[in-house]
């Protein structure tokens, strides 16, 4: 009957909620106790007034009246305090849960490897951390009150049973009725609210993408098209929300109806019993009073139950993200890179796929330490992928990659990645200061070290000219700086950590020729101390290198010096044909 409460999603969400409540035990208990106190004081209020009228006013006893009124004021003020306390601590719990979920999502997301982020758009993750987290929060905001109400319902039910067994039984029946209704509602609502959440995430994704690409949108005058896309996502939120609304409005009034029908039943049966003198009139009146008291907690419980499906749907989506197992993690090995290692690299029979697309087919090569090696291949041949494999940003399918004789899978990620430094093809800057961008991952780097790295990367000069020099914020993704300037900051970032292995993935593509020349001269000094992989197809850069690894069709086609390869490998030569002809043209 209550299948929906037994589904794995539901159970998982409930366990998650339980854990959150345990984390916020103290505040939750305070909120709940004040809710119980409040409910109790709400319930006694009419009785106090009845007593005041009967014992104070009707009897005309001034002293009694003063005492009773003071008592009522006292109860009222306590009630006021309990409202404030419940509100404050209840909200503390719920906001804390929400903030906690966000932190968890952020932490977890950082652990998930590239292959996850290639699939899941930014907006999708943002939606989980914002609107889904808020939805879960709403359930926690009413949870203390609802728990208190259930507690109250329990006490009232016992009172009713002791007052009259048959009447009490009728009233108790309302509880499974409410539960049945709730489960019926939940099983239908869960799906629909999941769809609402998905639609919301889709819109977040769409908005994030269209705004992120606003320069392209505007350059093509496609504002209308972009709005159209967002609007269709907005419409699907609207449509799914209406479905949910329709369902909700069919069920919610029933929740309200059940207690009313119960009163009706009590009235009919109680009236019958009383008229036939099976129970006394006094008993009947007292009983109806209690039944009235029951209406309100039942209504709050129903309200709470009706909020659960959307909360569970949101919780499920959050858990789905948190349950995603990070593919690339530290393993148990405690191996370390040899201290005196000079950065020898060995790829042995490495196979790698993106989804179904085979990139490397038993890729094998060796690079000696402290060498500067160019990785060459046509656009899309997997050069960048190779750069990602070395710091273990993607997991290889089979084979092994070794640095100084140690399999990279046996190294702690932290150690591996602080020894392998990668300057990406597209230089991503954070909207922090220039300094923080260079010192990424090395919070304790001194200003001097930062400047030295910037000097090498020829970034020092323009950074010094910025309004606040190294402390200037560089704006989202570094907008405001030119492509060449961004690349130089990214290069300084890569050099700063003095890695054992430096990988430059077309890292100078947007830098102008004369600066590139200067950087190259500076780099030569730095590169002497480390193994450097330069991913490029530019002859001048390649000529700088000791060696070339030429990749074609997923494996190493040839390895040797540039001139050797030009002379012996036709497909290699054709990559430079155009350059050659330009050279002669000059």
């Amino acid at each position, binding site marked *: 009957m209550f299948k929906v409460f037994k589904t794995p999603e539901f159970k998982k969400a409930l366990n998650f909620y339980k854990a959150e409540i345990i984390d916020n035990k103290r505040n939750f208990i305070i909120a709940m106790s004040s809710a119980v106190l409040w409910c109790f004081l709400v319930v006694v209020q009419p009785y106090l007034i009845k007593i005041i*009228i009967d014992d104070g006013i009707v009897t*005309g006893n001034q002293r009694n*009246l003063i005492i009773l009124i003071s008592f009522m*004021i006292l109860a*009222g003020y306590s*009630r*006021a305090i309990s409202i*404030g306390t419940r*509100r404050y601590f209840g909200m*503390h719990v719920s*906001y804390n849960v929400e903030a906690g979920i966000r932190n968890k999502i952020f*932490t977890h997301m*950082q652990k998930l*490897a590239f292959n996850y982020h290639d699939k899941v*758009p930014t907006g999708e993750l*943002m939606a989980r951390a*914002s609107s889904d987290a*808020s939805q879960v929060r709403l359930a926690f905001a009413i949870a203390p009150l609802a728990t208190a109400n259930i507690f109250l319902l329990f006490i009232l039910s016992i009172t009713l049973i002791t007052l009259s067994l048959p009447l009490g039984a009728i009233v108790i029946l309302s509880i499974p009725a409410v539960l049945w209704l709730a489960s019926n509602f939940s099983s239908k609502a869960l799906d629909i609210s999941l769809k609402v959440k998905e639609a919301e995430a889709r819109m*977040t994704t769409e*908005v*994030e*993408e*269209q705004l992120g690409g606003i*320069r392209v949108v505007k350059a093509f*005058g496609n504002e209308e098209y972009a*709005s159209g896309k967002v*609007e269709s996502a907005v419409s699907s939120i609207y449509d799914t929300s209406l479905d949910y609304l329709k369902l909700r409005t069919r069920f*919610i009034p029933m929740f*309200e*109806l059940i207690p*009313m*029908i119960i*009163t009706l039943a009590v*009235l009919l049966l*109680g*009236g019958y019993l009383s008229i036939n003198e099976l129970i006394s009139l006094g008993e009947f009146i007292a009983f109806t009073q209690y039944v009235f008291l029951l209406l309100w907690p039942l209504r709050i419980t129903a309200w709470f139950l009706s909020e659960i499906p959307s909360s569970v749907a949101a919780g499920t989506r959050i858990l789905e993200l948190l349950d995603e197992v990070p593919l690339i993690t530290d393993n148990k090995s405690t191996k370390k890179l040899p201290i005196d290692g000079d950065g020898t690299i060995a790829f042995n029979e490495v196979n790698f796929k993106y989804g*179904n697309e085979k990139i490397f087919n038993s890729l094998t090569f060796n690079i000696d330490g402290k060498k500067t090696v160019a990785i060459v291949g*046509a*656009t899309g041949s997997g*050069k960048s992928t190779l750069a990602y494999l070395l710091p273990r940003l993607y997991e290889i399918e089979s084979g092994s990659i070794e640095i100084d004789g140690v399999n990279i899978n046996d190294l702690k990620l932290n150690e591996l*990645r602080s020894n392998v430094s990668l300057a*990406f093809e597209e230089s991503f800057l954070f*909207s922090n200061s220039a300094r923080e961008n260079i010192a*990424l*991952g090395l919070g304790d780097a001194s200003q001097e070290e930062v400047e030295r790295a910037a000097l090498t990367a020829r970034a020092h000069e323009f950074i010094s000219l910025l309004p606040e020099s190294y402390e200037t914020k560089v704006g989202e993704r570094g*907008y*405001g700086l*030119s*492509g060449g*300037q961004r690349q130089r900051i990214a290069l300084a970032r890569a050099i700063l*950590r003095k890695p054992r292995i430096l990988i430059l993935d*077309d890292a100078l*593509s947007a830098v*102008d*020729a*004369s600066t590139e*020349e200067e950087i190259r001269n500076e780099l030569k000094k730095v590169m002497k101390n480390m193994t450097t992989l330069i991913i490029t197809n530019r002859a001048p850069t390649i000529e700088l290198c000791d060696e070339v690894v030429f990749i074609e069709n997923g494996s190493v086609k040839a390895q040797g010096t540039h001139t050797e390869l030009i002379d012996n490998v036709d497909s290699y030569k054709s990559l430079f044909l*155009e*350059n050659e002809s330009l050279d002669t043209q*000059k």
Partner: protein
Amino acid sequence: MNDNTFFRSYKLVPEVKRPFLYSSLIAMVATLIRMVGPQLISRGIDNGVLKADYNYLLEQSFYYFITLIALYFVASKALLSIGLVGELYVKRVREKLFRHLSSLDINYFEKNKTGVLVARMTSDMQSLNEFAREGASSIITALLTIFGATIAVFLVDVRLAFLSFLILPLLGIATKIFRNYADKAYWSVREWIGQVLSSLQEGISGVRIIQAYSDETSQLDNFKKVNNEHFKANMQSAKNIAFYFPFLEITRVTSIAIVIWFAAQRINQGTLSVGELVALLFYLNYFFDPLIMLSFNYDLLRSAGSSMKKVFSILDEEPVLSNTGITTPDMENNNVIEFNKVNFSYGRERVLHDVSFSINKGETIAIVGETGAGKSTIAKLILRFYLPNEGDVNFYGEPSKDVTQKWARKNIAYVPQESFLFRGSIKNNLIYSNPEGIDLEKELLEIGVLDWFERYENGLDQEVGERGANISAGERQFIALLRAVLAKREIIVFDEATANLDIESENSILDATDTLLAYQTSIIIAHRLETIINAEKIMVMHNGKLVGFDNHENLLRNNEIYQDLFSAWKLVN
């Protein structure tokens, strides 16, 4: 919400006005039916059970049952129509907001982070929805109930009525204080949620760098800091409520105590009956219950108000560039682009000084210069992303400020430095400029690059991830270039757009440009000799000034700066 925001919010979506009134009406009917029930029950008890008349009881129960059925339908209908109003409102605000955002000038997006703007479209709308769903209509019902109860209290006894409302001014003052604090708190909640989302957005889109540089801990610390500020702002709002709500309860009890005390004296004097007192207390509950309901909604209202203020702060941004300009240039004019003594700054320092040049139809112009010399700024002015501070940028003889935005967008194509691709198939990215009008395969075949796409498992239907994730930067650039070429605009601007390509791919693009774009005017920002040398004329930029504009040979002969650049290239080569 101050009155201004309130009325603006109301007027923003005029089409909800009628459904709103309609749903309020139904909600009132539902409230009325709810009040009938207890009357029937008490009659059933008084006249049925007490007088041992079971038939009467049955009769009243039957009526009660009927009201229950009616209530079910009316209440459903009320909930539904109120919900519809809320959903419709939020939908319209979202549409308007995004439409407006997309019309704003580029520099707005340079000042405002994507994450913050996303928060306006998501989190702020949620707070609006909470109010719309729960609040809007119950406020009307509550106000009406309070109004009715007030009249009833006065009808019972004028003097006691005044006494019971004596404490209300205090409540008014408390509400005003609460309002000030609440507005401040909710404003900062909205402010911080924007920061949270933008920090999150950056943490996600920069996740690759963060992992490669093992910067997870400090990123998380930063995020936690911002997230905690948001939490604190939320708790500030909770604190306000935690003081305000109890105050309401205190007012209620105090009022009731005052009424009972004075009523007791009057009953003693015989000027008031116990029945009247009971009625008075009954109506006072009808007065205070909705008042508490109201204050609860008042809180939601303040929160929604802060969100709407944020929305209006965006809607109040004027899109300068899309609104100025009414003429469409006569494209027969041979003088396609002309800069006349152009000065420009992004705000801080001047980046272009007195730049003048003109470009004729069909020319291919390269702009060279060191990083930061002002090359990209010239491109942005040509794209009409900005207007010059001083001097004129003319398109076919018309100043850019007079030209319509639409004309500029439909006649100038742009290949930006970063090749931004949208999620979806490669095909959809390529036909982006004209989704309905491009016969893609035919065009690609003509250009001779159709077989380039055979590298993908699904060819042109290959899906690319967000921002083109899962294909290489070179491939992204190739696609972005083709996208601009296929747009077939009169003027095309390449902003260092071939940097990541291998020679083969670059050549096929340049060939395509030659075949497709013979009539086009191209402006190429580049620092690769191979690209530059093909241009008809070369513009040499230095520190924001134009220091040479001629062909390669002449520049090499006469222009010192160009000679320097060239010797660098030669060194490189």
